[in-house]
């Protein structure tokens, strides 16, 4: 009997092991495309409503600011129909998308009911006028509540079908594109790419050579390296596949990334707050030094929420998210295909032989391209086009409240679903996979990454990140 998976019984109902998700099939079999369909669908709907003089605001309901519990109850009960409609909208659209992705609606529906109920609670806590005084930022509260539910109470694993971290964050990123003018992406994008490239290459080399120094195999070292340098778990799985890494090593790399990503969700906003970093500068630093998109958005949103509430922090909350997104998505994520191709090339021609082989293919660059980024750019283009004739004052007065604000509110919902899902799917007992040597090698890279990212964000490119404006 061969070793590995076949030696154990795979406990999946009706597995379809050889299903291809490439080519046109990707349009309905990959969550990146579903994030585009749903995100751009909302952006288009908002544009059409705006053209008719109406708005998506009715369904984009959020809890209002409150100071007494009675105010909160009154707000939620008076808007109960809107909340029910919004819940129904999310439930139906997500059910369709996730069913197409092969997840079971009978698992998703109860999971999403739980997710929405807790998200509403967390959103409401964040709207308390004393929330920032007690550090009750929704991303951090969502993460802690999720971790408590999954690790102290324990939830059945089938509920994970509704806790789709990546799916929710990608929809949020597409919606975020609607708030970011295309001119800003064109102006700050190259700076983001330059800063991110410096840090990514340095981090990769440090982790790779530290790993080699610890006696770790090259394929494993490369997987760890891109996990820290590019886009966390997504990069680790992509590179491990491209270079033919061992499954166990991939698990170790992923759990190592998760441990540090969770730590950074709390550490980066905390240090930024202690240093009273400018909102845009902090966003750039978090974008350079967080290891996963979802975790990074949690950290960036937590810091952005402090702007205007904590004295000494200059800038706007938008600047934190804009700088973070430019750095993480434009500066790091989109290059994963090139990393995969180059490392596959090196693995097949320069490294030691393994049992399997292949020929590096430049088409990998497109195959592995994180397609949701296209939705982010198209959303930005659409809103920029619709508001092209407006002055800044007209935009702020007429367009922003009815065209963009509902999209921002819906984005906030998807991010809370995402942050809560991170906690709900992170089980500490599974993180014991992280070995000592890989963890040590990765940690050396973390030190370099955080320090270099800090210097570039706060000194060399600080003026760019402080001047991100519409």
């Amino acid at each position, binding site marked *: 009997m061969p070793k590995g998976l076949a030696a154990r019984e795979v406990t999946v109902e009706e597995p379809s*092991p*050889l299903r291809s998700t490439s080519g046109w099939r990707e349009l309905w079999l*990959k969550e990146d495309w579903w994030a585009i369909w749903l995100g751009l669908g909302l952006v288009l709907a908002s544009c059409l409503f705006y053209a008719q003089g109406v708005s998506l605001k009715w369904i984009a309901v959020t809890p209002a600011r409150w100071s007494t519990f009675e105010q909160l109850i009154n707000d939620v009960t008076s808007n109960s129909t809107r909340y029910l409609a919004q819940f129904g909208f999310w439930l139906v659209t997500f059910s369709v998308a996730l069913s197409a992705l092969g997840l079971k609606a009978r698992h998703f529906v109860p999971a999403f009911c739980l997710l929405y109920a807790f998200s509403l609670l967390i959103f409401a806590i964040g709207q308390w006028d004393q929330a920032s005084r007690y550090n009750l930022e929704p991303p951090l509260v969502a993460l802690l509540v999720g971790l408590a539910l999954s690790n102290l109470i324990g939830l059945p694993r089938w509920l994970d079908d509704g806790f789709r*971290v990546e*799916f929710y964050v990608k929809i949020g990123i597409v919606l975020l594109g609607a708030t970011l003018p295309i001119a800003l992406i064109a102006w700050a994008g190259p700076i983001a790419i330059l800063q991110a490239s410096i840090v990514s290459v340095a981090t990769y080399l440090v982790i790779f050579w530290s790993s080699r120094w610890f006696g770790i195999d090259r394929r494993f070292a490369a997987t760890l390296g891109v996990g820290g340098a590019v886009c966390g778990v997504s990069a680790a799985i992509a590179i491990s596949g491209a270079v033919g890494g061992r499954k166990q090593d991939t698990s170790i790399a992923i759990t190592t990334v998760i441990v540090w990503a969770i730590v950074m969700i709390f550490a980066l906003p905390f240090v930024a707050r202690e240093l009273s970093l400018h909102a845009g500068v902090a966003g750039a630093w978090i974008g350079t030094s967080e290891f996963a998109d979802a975790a990074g958005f949690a950290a960036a949103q937590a810091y952005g929420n402090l702007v205007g509430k904590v004295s000494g922090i200059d800038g706007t909350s938008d600047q934190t998210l804009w700088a973070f997104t430019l750095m993480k998505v434009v500066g790091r994520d989109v290059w994963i295909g090139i990393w995969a191709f180059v490392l596959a090339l090196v693995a097949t021609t320069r490294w030691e032989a*393994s049992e399997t082989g292949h020929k590096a293919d430049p088409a990998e660059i497109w*195959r592995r391209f*994180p397609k949701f980024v296209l939705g982010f750019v198209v959303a930005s283009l659409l809103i920029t086009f619709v508001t092209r004739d407006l002055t800044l004052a007209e935009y702020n007065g007429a367009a922003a409240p009815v065209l963009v604000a509902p999209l921002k509110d819906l984005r906030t919902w998807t991010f809370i679903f995402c942050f809560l899902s991170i906690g709900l799917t992170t089980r500490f007992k599974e993180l014991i996979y992280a070995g000592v040597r890989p963890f040590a090698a990765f940690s050396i890279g973390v030190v370099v990454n955080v320090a270099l990212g800090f210097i570039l964000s706060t000194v060399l490119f600080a003026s760019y990140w402080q001047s991100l404006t519409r």
Partner: protein
Amino acid sequence: MRMMSFFIHRWIGRGSERQAVSSQNHQAASCADCRHFLNDPHILEQEIAGLSSLGSARASVRADDGVCARYDRLTTRRFWCREHFVLQDAGPEA
């Protein structure tokens, strides 16, 4: 893309003897039609700890990668090896 691939492989050609296994007949015998190749996202998320926490087996970046049950490695559909088992020929395990 093909042109780029051609020049790159010409350039790195001198290292090709170090490739893992012979490329002979590999086009007719890639992982894509091997019984040991499993790329169902359900299986991957069950088998790779943490994958569904801050990542996903349904993301574009994974492309069509799967796990080789023979060697316990992640591979793309375009990998090949000497112990390839074509699906339709799958009989008792060797």
